[in-house]
């Protein structure tokens, strides 16, 4: 039973209001599982916007490569994969030219992987804010996830260019694409919440993340199609939410033969579970952040 915050504050226009209009907030120790308080997130949406804006601006002001970095990573990976897996090892690719087969997967993958590395260190990196100002701490990893969208859009533009080059036009399934992006975001956020909260307490988490990312890359059907797996393994494979994202992306854009119904359902469920548990774990650990960050 938590007796935490009673009412959220009301924004005021000018000057102090008469006492009757002001709500009272109670600050008290919280016990057990803490509610998510999504309404407070909405109230602080402007701050979220500013933090995302700040992240993007700083990232692009600093690097000489700037926008091209968003493209180089997935592109070069695609080149290497195409050479070794596609050409030399003759990996099957669901009837689509291998380069585009892997690139279509690498674009959402990069979004996820970058989101992961950014958000895992986001809380520690924002320690100067967390120890000095109040705002719902959920905003910090949220901002990290969102700031990856710009990079994603740039890489996506390159993907479209590649599709045109190969003469592949998207089918009507492309309307489903935003949903798969959403799934990628949910996954990225969910894992990011777990990692960022864990990283505050266990500082070596940050160093484990590159390994996790790399391992995850190979466990996701980027370099190979999931159709390699027979049922029921194929559906169970969806427990890795990125499987749903990647296969969904490929299906929506390129019209692969695999209509990924059940696997998407499994992935979506997995992603939502990760997100919700991550959010609750985060909120529960939140009270310690300012003290140990």
């Amino acid at each position, binding site marked *: 039973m938590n007796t935490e915050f009673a009412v959220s504050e009301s924004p005021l226009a000018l*000057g102090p209001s008469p006492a009757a209009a*002001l*709500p009272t907030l109670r*600050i008290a120790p*919280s016990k057990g599982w803490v509610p998510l308080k999504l309404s407070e997130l909405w109230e602080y949406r402007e701050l979220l916007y500013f933090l995302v804006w*700040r992240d993007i601006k700083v990232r692009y002001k600093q690097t000489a490569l700037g926008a091209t970095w968003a493209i180089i990573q997935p592109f070069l990976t695609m080149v290497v994969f195409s050479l070794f897996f596609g050409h030399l090892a003759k990996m099957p690719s669901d009837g689509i030219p291998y380069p585009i087969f892997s690139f279509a997967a690498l674009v959402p993958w990069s979004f996820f992987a970058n989101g992961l590395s950014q958000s895992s260190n986001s809380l520690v990196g924002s320690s100067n804010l967390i120890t000095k*100002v109040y705002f719902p701490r959920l905003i910090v990893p949220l901002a990290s996830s969102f700031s990856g969208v710009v990079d994603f859009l740039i890489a996506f533009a390159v993907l479209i260019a590649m599709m045109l080059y190969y003469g592949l036009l998207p089918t009507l399934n492309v309307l489903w694409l935003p949903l798969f992006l959403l799934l990628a975001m949910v996954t990225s956020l969910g894992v990011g919440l777990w990692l960022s909260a864990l990283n505050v307490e266990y*500082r070596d988490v940050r160093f484990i993340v590159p390994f996790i990312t790399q391992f995850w890359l190979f466990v996701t059907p980027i370099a190979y199609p999931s159709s390699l797996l027979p049922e029921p393994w194929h559906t169970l494979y969806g427990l890795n939410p990125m499987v749903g994202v990647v296969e969904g992306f490929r299906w929506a854009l390129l019209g692969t033969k695999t209509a990924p119904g059940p696997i998407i359902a499994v992935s979506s469920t997995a992603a939502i579970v990760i997100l919700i548990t991550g959010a609750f774990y985060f909120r529960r650990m939140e009270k*310690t952040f300012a003290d140990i960050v």
Partner: protein
Amino acid sequence: MSDIAIKVEGLGKRYHIGANQQSYKTLKEKLTDTAATPFRALRSLGRRNGHHSSNGHKSKAEMIWALKDVSFEIKRGEVVGIIGRNGAGKSTLLKILSRITEPTEGYADITGRIASLLEVGTGFQPELTGRENIYLNGSILGMKHAEIRRKFDEIVAFAEVEKFIDTPVKHYSSGMYVRLAFGVAAHLDPEILLVDEVLAVGDAAFQKKCLGKMGDVAREGRAVLFVSHNTSAVVSLCKRALLLTSGSISMDGPSTDVTASYQFEAAGLNLNQTTDLREVTHKGSGKARFLSMDLQANGKSGQPIHSIVTGCDVLIETTVSCLADIQDANVAVIVYDSNGYRLIDVNTALKGDFLSMQPGQEATIRFRLKEVLLKPGSYYVGLWIGRGGVEEIDSVDYARRMDVIADVESVRHTEVFPGAYLCKFDSMVETN
């Protein structure tokens, strides 16, 4: 009831310190523990005291109560100062009221929007321009976009950085940086403002400006909690002050009284009490140690009087214990004013008396300061023993406080005039 802006009841905050706090736990350790003792490790996942033992048993964690049983009320429009030594818990109290950290026990009821200034320039990004940082910092501090836009020109004018508003902040001088940061903060519009020693930065002119702005804020009917070491700022801005000592409120009253009490925490008033110097801070080689000090006052005719009056004789007696051989040492008595300025410094060498002792011996040194014409007020007495310029054997900077009160016969003379030393004088006025 609706008058109260902040109501704090039994607030306490406990921290774990010591070995467990230092090393961040690593996930690697946690995982190996999980493998070894799975159930215990699973249960401790999500335990939120930031304190996990890495080998399954409760390590001896030290816990300190940074705040304990703190209760007070602040009304709307009240400006209250919070003073206390470093480590007394002032910043912790502000952090709890700002919701940055959670209390361990007790509660606080906040009525109205609260804004905290715990640091100047929170979240400032060097690569962004002044303009961008105003929006960013304002947003971080809790202002809405529209509000920032409305106050933008005022903020820039307050900070006096009009010409540089579109230059990246990393090119600003430290003064400009501080002015801009404070400019944003100064235009917050909350019902309750919490300020933590941020006025310590900036030059005198700027500090004056900030104090002025804070005064305005107070006049507009907002409650302000002002943490500071600057006692004159506290006295000028706040009618009421709270003194925090080791995590609890030791005094709550008019700021003049509380600041006086804070500044003169050193020792007691009573002339009949011998001051025990064994537990106070000593400096020096330690070959000998001051053990105690007695302070007495004698009046004009040599009779003992019960308080130190301007113009009386002050008798100081101190006992020294020797731990290692000392030769030809000089003992001094120093009287400081409340700002730490040395006003009186007399020593035995000036009279040709030197002290030589052997380990185990004790010596008593007596001083009589004659006709101490100090203006009424509080002073500190310090003791020193050493060989001038060669060795400092023992030094107690502030052994005890000495309060001088006005001579009843000439109260007007001794209280009104600002000079520290009230010398005797003759004067004559002639009109031509």
